[in-house]
């Protein structure tokens, strides 16, 4: 089983995507399954260590929080652009954040969250020191942003992945 | 009634996205540095992709979806390639 399907979740997801992109039929189900199994073998050749989820039940909560935060910061950045940065009072800046996360998959998810949220941009991560360099669009209080990344996202990712 | 609402919303979206593409094009032309131009190009690809989806909704045909997907993939590959070039290409100078 594990030799035939090294990544069952990935394989299932690929079959699902294949069926969404085409219309459901038996032929497409078979073809999609073949493609998905081949792709998961290719994946196995690329990446020997598989990400292990420790608590998958925390994922929906994280997704909800992130979707809400993205909507909120969309409104905030849109308003800042419309109002010309509160009449020139907006100040952007760089921010270094020490991270406890080390798991590559968890870091990738954090990168997606940070970049997808308007207002924060992921610039550089140093794997030796674990320090992340962010650029923040509206840097009112550094403590707020540290708190947001470390307590709101990182703590949940630590719970899920490590 | 609902046709009027949708036609109005889709017309607004087409004008807004065309304008957005023009603004991204302005950033490509103006620069001032290479990374600004690449960022403009990436934004231009995204707006073009969204414009295709909106046009597909307006014409009621599903075929625009494939075009949008191809534009999205091409935009991704182009931007990644150009960004890599900006990192690597300048080291030699």
């Amino acid at each position, binding site marked *: 089983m594990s030799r035939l399907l090294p990544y069952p979740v990935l394989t299932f997801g690929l079959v699902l995507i294949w069926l969404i992109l085409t219309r459901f039929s038996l032929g497409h189900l078979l073809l999609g399954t073949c493609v998905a199994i081949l792709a998961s073998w290719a994946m196995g050749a690329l990446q020997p260590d598989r990400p292990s989820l420790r608590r998958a039940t925390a994922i929906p909560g994280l997704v909800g929080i992130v979707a809400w935060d993205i*909507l909120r910061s969309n409104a905030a950045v849109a308003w800042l652009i419309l109002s010309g940065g509160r009449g020139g009072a907006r100040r*952007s800046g760089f921010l270094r954040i020490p991270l406890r996360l080390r798991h590559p998959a968890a870091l990738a998810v954090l990168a997606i969250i940070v970049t997808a949220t308007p207002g924060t941009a992921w610039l550089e991560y140093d794997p030796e020191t674990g320090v992340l360099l962010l650029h923040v669009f509206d840097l009112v209080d550094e403590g707020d942003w540290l708190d947001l990344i470390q307590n709101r996202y990182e703590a949940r990712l630590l719970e899920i992945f490590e | 009634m609902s046709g009027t609402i949708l036609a109005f919303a889709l017309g607004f979206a087409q004008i807004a996205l065309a304008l957005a593409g023009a603004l991204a094009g302005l950033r490509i032309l103006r620069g001032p540095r290479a*990374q600004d131009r690449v960022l403009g190009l990436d*934004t231009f690809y995204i707006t073009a992709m969204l414009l295709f989806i909106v046009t597909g909704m307006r014409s009621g045909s599903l075929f625009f979806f494939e075009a949008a997907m191809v534009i999205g993939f091409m935009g991704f590959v182009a931007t990644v390639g150009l*960004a890599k070039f900006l990192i690597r290409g300048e080291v030699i100078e």
Partner: protein
Amino acid sequence: MSHLDSVPLWVAIPVALLIVLGSGLTLLGTIGLVRLPSFYDRLHAPTLGTSWGTLGIVLASAILFTWLEKRLVIHELLIGLFVMITTPVTLMLLGRAALHRDRIEGLDAAPPPAGAPDNPDEQLP
């Protein structure tokens, strides 16, 4: 426009709102792209279009075509997923390229490399 008239009002209104929201946010993002003063500021502008800008239009399209075709049409959502995953890659690469180029040219807009001993709370105007 005959196919648009067959849509009932309770589907048309949310679809129209999502379309206007998505295209409006994308337009605002590009306005920011043109108006903001520095590259690192401009790096934030396109994310308006790639987050809820794309999501709004893609959701509207999925709802509309699901109604028009009388079957579940959600392949537009894959575009949303795809944009969601690829945008961080492109923007991170662009951000790193800009940092790299600024550091090579010695512009003081760029912070020093992470290994350099500096004040961790450092920030630049």
